[in-house]
């Protein structure tokens, strides 16, 4: 495979991909998507939120789950970083603490795919942040 060095190389890859995959019915309205927000403030970064985010992006794409992964600020649970807020379509957001790779896998397999809650939810009276 040739090295990818220019924007033209990127365009070539894109075209290859474009012809290969049929775009998933990505209903652009976010209510139909699983939303995953990764806490990425100083505390999150220092606790490895980058690896967690990368894992979510890779895994959700691999398993073809319609989801958007975004970053958010500190949710105030610095002691429990990395924290991840998951919003299933039509449900209230849920925040999980101490989300390393293993926990992330559990969240995807059990909560996102089957809708069953898993341990590690913080705290009870959580409201989604708007910052």
């Amino acid at each position: 495979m040739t090295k990818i060095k220019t924007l033209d190389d990127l365009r070539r890859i894109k075209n290859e991909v474009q012809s290969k995959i049929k775009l998933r019915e990505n209903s652009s309205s976010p209510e139909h998507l699983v939303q995953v927000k990764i806490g990425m403030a100083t505390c999150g970064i220092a606790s490895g939120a980058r690896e967690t985010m990368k894992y979510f992006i890779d895994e959700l794409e691999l398993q073809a789950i319609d989801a958007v992964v975004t970053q958010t600020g500190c949710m105030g649970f610095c002691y429990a970083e990395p924290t991840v807020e998951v919003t299933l379509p039509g449900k209230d957001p849920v925040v999980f603490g101490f989300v390393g790779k293993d926990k992330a896998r559990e969240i995807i397999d059990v909560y996102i795919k089957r809708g069953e809650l898993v341990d590690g939810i913080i705290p009870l009276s959580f409201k989604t942040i708007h910052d």
Partner: protein
Amino acid sequence: MKTISDHMLDIVQNSIRAHATWIEVIFSENKNCDIYQIKIIDNGCGMSKELLNQAANPFFTSRSTRKVGLGLSLLKQNAEASQGSVKIVSEPGKGTVVQAIFQHSHLDRPPLGDIWNVIYLLLVGNPTIRFSFRYQTEKGTFELDSTELLKLMDGIPIVQQEVKNALIEYLKNNLKEIEAGI
């Protein structure tokens, strides 16, 4: 924060919180002058003088969710540990410029880290923000503008496996070419 990439991600997060829509990140390395500089320019809400004076104080934060704000403090600590400094210029309503200078050859200067992954995460995590990255060394300059990139992608999500790998390889190859972080 172990790497300059981590610091970059952290400071950019401040810009995002300041409702910036355009964030410019400029790295410049110069071994001849022994300087390693990173500059983050945003068009967010900016800071007043009083706020600016407090910005690098670890016990100050503009958040209400917690009582400490370590991002800029940690950057300042690392910069000063490697004979450098942090300068912040800000004007309310216009935006903020954070500039960190390190001594390139200093033992305590954090390594660059996996900057390609950080750039990728920023692009995926903040699709509505325009990012302009520039990396300058004596060997050359590499630039990436997120609007240009997304236009090129033409609706194909950059989380798509092949596109993702291609994009990261693109970043890696170009940065390697100009010997970034070596």
